[in-house]
């Protein structure tokens, strides 16, 4: 008999007024008892709509059934058939618009807490010390992976499991891509990412940091001189966009990438850190996505008294995960919705003193299906702040495109790839944000998986 409780078992979290002063993980995770109880809410229905809601089609009811029976190891095996980064996805996937949005239980009550259960299973697995990783039999073929974010790590892992000799090239000094420079510690502890990277290394994957592909070695050289038969480009969308409004180059205006990189990768959040960052008192974050929420919550934790989210549409259109918005509100982030910045104002030394916004109202739906925000004439006002973080999106880095002949890209910079990830160059595959523009971890992971399968097929056919 399933557990007919209308609500998900609540996720235990640190108290909002404690956690908004530290960088420890906000959500502390289910216990075994709670996980089993929540798993019993799954009806194990025949139609399994949740599976279709998952971009990598995890056999969700199967793993949940194992959890309900207390077989956590078996549950992990089910998940790992489809996903390489469950501890990451359980934390950062927008489940409410994916698997959980399709859950039959969700029609009348709250859906099953699929994401929370996935996280529980992954954490349980990672806590086991006696799990041995078997190195697969080498098949003698070399593949290069450019970028160590979610798509690159996934592609590398899948190929390594098939026996490929895989080398991952990372431009920064630490592997993990956006998982380490972007998503903050309190939402995704770096030890979890490190664990995933260590697992890959145990499978035989080589990780070369400090390698800016396109500069130190080109894609052509990887294939012609270094003997890689295929290359996967998962270089992400790292180039920050700005609004092109007056005052954007004032001191105290950051891209979200810079603000988060200083805070996370460069550890500015630690008291003994030597990384400079402005400990602003009042901060405005422009944008409404997950990155904006991350930046707002980091600013609060760095000691800001007032942190505003300035977003031009309404709450309904906020692209961030619901949980992040809720957590941000609990932590005291102030939402200035239906406001659009028109100018950033500075003092005589060109340090930020305020951000001028105009009020917006929602008009007819636009191309994205969301109602288009329209400025309310004469409604300008100035919000006093001493720092502004621009978080309105990113574009793919042009470096690889600029240094790889015959690699076709979209006008906006995204690499053109077919449904298998194949680019306009033979043997060169691409996936993740480098192809789609800024999207989610799980979509990038899915692209890495698809490309790994296509690369395997390509190399096997070539060598027949």
């Amino acid at each position, binding site marked *: 008999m399933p557990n007919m409780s209308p609500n998900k078992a609540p996720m235990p979290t640190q108290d909002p007024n404690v956690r908004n002063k530290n960088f420890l993980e906000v959500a502390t995770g289910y216990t075994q008892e709670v996980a089993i109880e929540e798993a019993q809410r799954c009806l194990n229905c025949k139609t399994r709509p949740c599976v279709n809601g998952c971009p990598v089609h995890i056999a969700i009811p199967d793993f949940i059934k194992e959890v309900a029976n207390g077989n956590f190891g078996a549950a992990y095996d089910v998940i790992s058939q489809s996903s390489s980064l469950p501890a990451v996805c359980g934390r950062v996937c927008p489940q409410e618009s994916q698997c959980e949005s399709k859950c039959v239980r969700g029609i009348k009550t709250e859906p099953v807490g699929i994401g929370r259960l996935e996280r529980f299973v992954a954490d349980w697995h990672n806590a086991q010390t006696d799990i041995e990783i078997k190195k697969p039999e080498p098949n003698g073929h070399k593949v290069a992976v450019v970028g160590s974010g979610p798509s690159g790590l996934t592609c590398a892992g899948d190929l390594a499991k098939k026996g490929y000799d895989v080398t991952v090239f990372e*431009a*920064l*000094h630490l592997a993990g891509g956006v998982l380490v*420079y972007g998503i903050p510690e309190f939402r995704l502890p770096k030890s979890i990412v490190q664990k995933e990277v260590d697992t890959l290394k145990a499978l035989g994957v080589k990780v070369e*940091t*400090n*390698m*800016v592909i396109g*500069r*130190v*070695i080109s894609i052509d050289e990887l294939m012609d001189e270094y003997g890689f038969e295929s290359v996967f480009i998962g270089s992400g969308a*790292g*180039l*920050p966009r*700005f609004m*092109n409004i007056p005052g*954007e*180059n004032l*001191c*105290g205006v*950051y*891209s979200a*990438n*810079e603000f988060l*990189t*200083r805070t996370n990768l*460069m*550890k500015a959040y630690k008291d003994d850190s*030597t*990384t*400079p*960052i*402005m400990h602003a008192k009042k901060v405005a974050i422009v944008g409404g996505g997950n990155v904006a929420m991350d930046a707002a919550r980091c600013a609060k934790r760095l000691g800001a008294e007032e942190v505003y989210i300035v977003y031009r549409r309404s709450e309904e259109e906020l692209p961030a995960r619901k949980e992040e918005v809720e957590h941000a509100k609990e932590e005291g982030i102030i939402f200035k919705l239906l406001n659009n910045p028109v100018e950033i104002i500075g003092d005589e*030394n*060109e340090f930020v003193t305020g951000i001028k916004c105009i009020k917006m109202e929602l008009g007819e739906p636009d191309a994205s299906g969301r109602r288009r925000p329209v400025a309310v004439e004469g409604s300008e006002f100035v919000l006093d702040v001493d720092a502004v973080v621009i978080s309105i999106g990113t574009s793919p*880095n*042009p*470096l690889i495109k600029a240094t790889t002949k015959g690699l076709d890209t979209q006008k906006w910079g995204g690499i053109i790839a077919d449904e298998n990830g194949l680019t306009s160059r033979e043997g060169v595959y691409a996936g993740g944000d480098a192809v789609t523009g800024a999207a989610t971890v799980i979509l990038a992971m899915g692209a890495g998986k698809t490309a790994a399968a296509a690369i395997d097929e390509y190399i096997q056919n070539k060598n027949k």
Partner: protein
Amino acid sequence: MYKIVKKKSLNPTVTLMEIDAPLIAKKAEPGQFIILRVDDEGERIPLTVAGYDREAGTVRIIFQIVGATTEKLNHLEEGDYISDFVGPLGVPTHTDGLKKVCVVGGGVGCAIALPVAEKLHELGCEVHSIVGFRNKDLVILEDEFKACSDKFIMMTDDGSYGDKGVVTAPLEELIKAGENYDLVITIGPLIMMKFVVKTTKPYNIPTTVSMNPIMIDGTGMCGGCRLTVDGQTKFACVDGPDFDGFKVDFDEAMKRGAMYKAFERHAHEDTCNLFKKEVE
């Protein structure tokens, strides 16, 4: 880990190092830069490549000891290792097809100007070099500049060596004397580059400046190094570091370069990627 194969003190505050980094040595060109981290807890600092030996597989860096990171780096000796050394980053200085160029370097900026002058000399271009320092004790690389320059002028602020004055004075004299430069390339403190541009502009001599703003990743990711060029936002790390000097907003660049001065004073003596300070 990257080994320090050579260390030499050029003056009490400026040190030269050669780092074992064969892949970077193979590709580096004048005008490009590297980013290094001394150790695992260190910050990333950009340093422009001061030379390279493709056969030996080494990259030369020259840095002024201005704060925590460069201090820590200077404590290392030959045979020691630094944890990260990444590059070559940025677009190389344009050197092709030039007949006569004046290279204007200031302070530690001369370390970066030298490989540009050498490359031009190698390509058969006539090279005039004007270098400026605060005083005699701070002079570096004089012999090396002389070896690749058809004309060489040394300036010091206090007149303790060479001629007394700023680099723009001899530059203007040479221009007035009818030297028809295809290009002036200037590398040094922002204020110096700003005045070099002011000098060349009335004569409409194309002038390249090498910008070195605060930087973190060096690959176009953070946007911290942005500057305004011809009214547009550019990233020094991927669009530069060389830019058309006539179009750079120097006043904004100088203010952005001073962003963390208070932090440096209060928190640590210096923890910042202020390469600007290093070339002063």
